[in-house]
């Protein structure tokens, strides 16, 4: 299964991104890593060019919120992305925040899976469950 990943916006925290790339590969995904400093449009464009089923966005420096609000508007301009599984994780707010507030907010932005300060492996387990569930639907 194809996954597009990267770190959104002006964020340059690269360590998690490398780990995500490796972990996804270890789990058998075909990874298209756009690296740090990736803009929303590039994520969607990469999904179009590759035919990826999953988009996994990271954000570490606190700017996720601003990008989150743009997601629906931008995605609506694409004709073939309705089935794309959308996941986001990292530090999804400025400061610590709590997941009870943050998760519903990002779901409202159009993300299927939201992992605020969730350990990577836990998050990827959730992704695999989600995919399995979707297949049985």
């Amino acid at each position, binding site marked *: 299964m194809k996954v597009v990943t990267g770190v959104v916006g002006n964020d340059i925290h690269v360590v998690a991104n490398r780990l995500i790339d490796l972990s996804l590969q270890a789990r058998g995904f075909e990874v298209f890593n756009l690296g740090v400093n990736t803009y929303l449009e590039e994520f969607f*464009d990469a999904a179009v*060019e590759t035919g990826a089923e999953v988009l996994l966005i990271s954000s570490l420096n606190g700017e996720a919120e601003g990008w989150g609000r743009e997601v629906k508007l931008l995605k609506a301009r694409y004709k073939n992305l309705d089935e794309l599984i959308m996941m986001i994780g990292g530090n999804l707010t400025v400061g610590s925040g709590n997941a009870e507030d943050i998760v519903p907010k990002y779901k409202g932005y159009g993300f299927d899976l939201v992992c605020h300060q969730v350990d990577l492996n836990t998050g990827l387990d959730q992704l695999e469950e989600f995919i399995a569930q979707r297949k049985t639907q």
Partner: protein
Amino acid sequence: MSNNEKLLIDVGSTYFKVSTPGKIEQHFRDFNKDILDDLMSKCDNSISRFNKEDVFICSSANGGLSTLIIGITNSFSLKYATNIAFNAGINIIDTILYQDIQDASIPSDLIDVVIIVGGINSLGNIFSEELYNYLSKIQYSNIVFAGSEKDAALIQNNIEHLITLPNIIDSKLHIVEDHLREYLTNLYQKDIEGKRDIKNLYSITANQIYPTPYIVNKTLPLINARFSVANPFILLDIGGATTDIHYSKDLVDENIVTENQYDRMVFKKLGVYKSKQSLIFTAKNNEFVYELLMHLKVTENIFLEQSEKATKILMQLAIFLVLCKMSHYRQAYINLKLLAINSIVLTGGITKVLLKEDVEDIVSFFYRKILTSDHNPTTIMDTNYDIWTLAAEDN
């Protein structure tokens, strides 16, 4: 052979340059005349002294090829193909995002080459009926497909005279330049040779006539032979019809990863003669331009003037506007890390009109106003057209 024995000629859209040992002449073109006649009437003395073997000509006249690129995203297929086309020396590029093709306008002119791109090789069924419908409505001389391998056979069956090349996108979503670039360079070459004006020039040279941007791009790795340029740098060639920017790859943190050290980008309508009106239009729409005019101690009435001073101001504006266009996200198809630049090299007619101080003034104004920074790259003026002679000599 030593440089001194060569005659170098560069034919541009607005003027031509003739470089003989020790001297460079520059003349405005007379568009009522064939290029060769024009050249001979102005520089016969210089030209007839040389053997055909010692005459080297490059040309950016006649606009070159017109290209229409159909791709499936702005960030990858369209951007990659545009980049390749620029590097092959092509200036006139239009793009269509495939998902909007039904609403795309139909160009009335004959297009020299249509390029279809999109998708990694494992992706199929990207293009369909809508593509063929659109193609049936436009006129073109050449058509090439450099997209997903999976779609190649189907497309080949549906489009007559289609050339299929290896995908410009690899399995990691990176760019693969070589095949399309070679195809376009050859086409460009054939086109130049086919133009009657240019053909006539072969009566004074025994050497191949190359497109000017191709020549300049080839020189950049050699640039340190003539100038002390600190890397990374950009080179601005502000001409009569277009403005060309050549830049080192370190200046883009893009998903474009190529073998080439340098890339090129063209602003079609930013020239100081042929496209003067559109330059003025762009200027009037830039919120900082009035402040800049004030800084230069002139008013916008200067746009109506026909004087040396007015040309000078226009050239300064062109520098400012080009820098602006490259600095904001998504305005140009590529954005450069302007704060990382250590040198700005200027070449072309502009170096005959502006002083180094005039350029430096604009550059620091730009950094202060637009990037709110005191960064100040060194300015280098290629007053003797060394960049161009360097490459021509290297041939």
